[in-house]
């Protein structure tokens, strides 16, 4: 019993030594300190403001070939809610198409000649709308706005004619669609993006720093000196990664605090659950970092290796594009991505106030993957260094 306690004490002393050493060494390097503390803030703000998925003020060119008050009124009404914003008008369809081509406008609305006359006669009339399809979500929103408006307008016109014909106000049966957005009522990108950015920062920072930290020891030669001491390999690994797990927890706290103050990101669920998800996710990132370092001889190789993993990790996570928008064959691959589960879990907890049983699957998958990658890394670590 006392032997086991002494052995445990030994491990703790060694663990503390590696931990202190790692902190001292890291804090000596100002660039790394910057990377760990200030850079995440800047990134959060830059990404929060720059990645704007909100669709409004779509530049719209109007070609009024009719010149009638009715046509003008119709166009004005269409532009009224701010989804579409008028650019300088064009005098011909060709000119409008050229503007679409050059990116000066994303939508062109063409009022055909004789629009007012046809309308007055009660004949079917057409209004042409040209859309720049390069940004599908934007063109989708723009075309939705136009057709919604024209649909309502057509109904109004029908009602007016009916009233005129029958000599009295008549109610027309109609179904009105009123979508109500839950959890993110203002359809704000930032609220959706901040948890994604937090996950992205954690992935980049902790993976890179662990991958390069161990690769540096290998490159410089310090690992050799440490390996001839009685320090067990797992203690070395735990001691080396635990400071960065702490840094990750601090960074994510700062990111969420900044998200809550700057972008009004709500915190509806329990913070304990949020930290549990974060800690489980960090097992994955430091595990991957360690794994990369075992297949790298130098810091440069580790850096490249980490990026080869981080980029697809980001793209296939649902941070920047929704997973359901990816090609069908690609979607199952995201099931291998820890960042996907982290995002699902954190968005559910922060935005929807999810409870443990709501995110138990995500938490379980993160823990499973985390332990698996750590085990793989330590097996490889023993093989490469021994």
């Amino acid at each position: 019993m006392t032997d086991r306690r002494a052995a445990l004490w030994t491990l703790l002393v060694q663990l503390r030594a590696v931990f202190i050493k790692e902190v001292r060494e890291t804090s000596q390097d100002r660039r790394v300190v910057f990377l760990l503390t200030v850079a995440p803030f800047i990134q959060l703000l830059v990404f929060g403001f720059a990645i704007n998925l909100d669709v409004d003020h779509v530049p719209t060119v109007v070609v009024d070939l009719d010149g009638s008050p009715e046509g003008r009124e119709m166009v004005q009404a269409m532009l009224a809610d701010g989804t579409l914003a008028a650019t300088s008008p064009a005098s011909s369809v060709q000119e409008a198409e050229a503007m679409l081509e050059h990116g000066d406008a994303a939508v062109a609305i063409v009022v055909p000649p004789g629009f007012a006359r046809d309308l007055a006669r009660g004949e079917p009339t057409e209004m042409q709308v040209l859309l720049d399809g390069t940004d599908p979500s934007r063109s989708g929103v723009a075309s939705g706005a136009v057709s919604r408006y024209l649909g309502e307008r057509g109904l109004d016109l029908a009602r007016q004619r009916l009233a005129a014909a029958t000599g009295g106000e008549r109610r027309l049966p109609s179904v009105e669609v009123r979508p109500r957005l839950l959890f993110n009522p203002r359809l704000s990108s930032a609220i959706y993006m901040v948890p994604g950015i937090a996950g992205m920062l954690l992935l980049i920072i902790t993976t890179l720093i662990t991958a390069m930290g161990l690769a540096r020891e290998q490159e410089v030669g310090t690992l050799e000196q440490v390996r001839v001491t009685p320090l067990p390999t797992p203690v070395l690994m735990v001691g080396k990664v635990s400071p960065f797990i702490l840094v990750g927890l601090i960074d994510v706290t700062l990111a969420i605090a900044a998200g809550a103050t700057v972008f009004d990101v709500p915190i509806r669920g329990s913070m304990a659950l949020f930290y549990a998800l974060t800690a489980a996710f960090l097992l994955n990132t430091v595990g991957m970092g360690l794994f990369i370092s075992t297949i790298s001889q130098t810091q440069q190789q580790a850096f490249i290796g980490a990026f080869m993993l981080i980029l697809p990790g980001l793209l296939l996570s649902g941070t920047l594009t929704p997973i359901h928008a990816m090609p069908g064959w690609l979607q199952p691959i995201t099931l291998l991505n820890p960042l996907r589960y982290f995002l699902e879990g954190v968005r559910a907890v922060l935005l929807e106030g999810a409870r443990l049983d709501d995110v138990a699957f995500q938490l379980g998958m993160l823990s499973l993957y985390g332990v698996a990658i750590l085990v793989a890394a330590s097996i490889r670590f023993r093989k490469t260094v021994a």
Partner: protein
Amino acid sequence: MTAIPSPTSSEPDAAVQVRGLVRSFGAVRAVAGLDLALYPGEIYGLVGPDGAGKTTTIRTIAGLLDPDAGTVRVLGLAPDDPRVRESVGLMPQRYSLYGDLSVGENLRFFRRLFCLPRDVAEQRIARLLALTRLAPFIDRRADDLSGGMYKKLALACALLHQPRVLLLDEPTNGVDPVSRRELWTLLGEFVGQGMAVLVSTPTMDEAERCHRVGLLHAGRLIAEGEPSRLVRELDSPVFLVRGGDRDRVQAVVEQAPEVLAASPAGARLKVVLQPGGTDRLAERLAPHGATLVPTRPDFEDLFLARLAAGGTA
């Protein structure tokens, strides 16, 4: 230099025992069947040119490399046994300390890894700092130390846990002569207390400071023993070439098959000859007005002679 017990009588007590060690890196056979024994209280010099297999041998004994064939026993145990770790100190050839940490922080880090009790360790650290004269630099970053001071710090870190076996891979590489002498004096002190030291070096004058040396060539020992005795037992005659035009003499010497090795000695040329080759070389040199003057061989001559013989064998 202290007398050491005859190796055969203390065989069971060998601190390090290497038998038939083979280790290759790809197609390169770094160590090709090496036998070596290191005893407590002795400094064993592993001498050889770059690429002879010195570092591979030391790394294998330290448990950093697995042998392809053969056995390595350190204090009777496998080199990667955790119990061995507490009794072995290694000073690698490469920089191996934390450059961003100070002298004191490096020492404290290794003190903790070996779980040394603080009071004992602090006394030792104080003593090592005094011996290495590093005490005034305790707060200096390791990377800011001079080459000699850095090596002394590395030695202090390797000695901190009072190892019974100390492995030094070219410890004086890049060290000025004064620091070099200090390092050797320091080593002598610890060896006197029974430590076994294996030191590799490519320089011959350092080999003469060892109790025993092994000449390593192409991964094999080609000679082993006390340096002075090895030199005494050298059966190749050694001469200085006197007189004659130096360039012409050199050309003759280089082409003469009986010359095992030639090296400059001051303004003259020193030659190591095959046994019985003296007369033939004298005849070749006579037309150029040069004569052979016998001289005392030193360790370098021995090494060159053995290398020439070993290389052709």
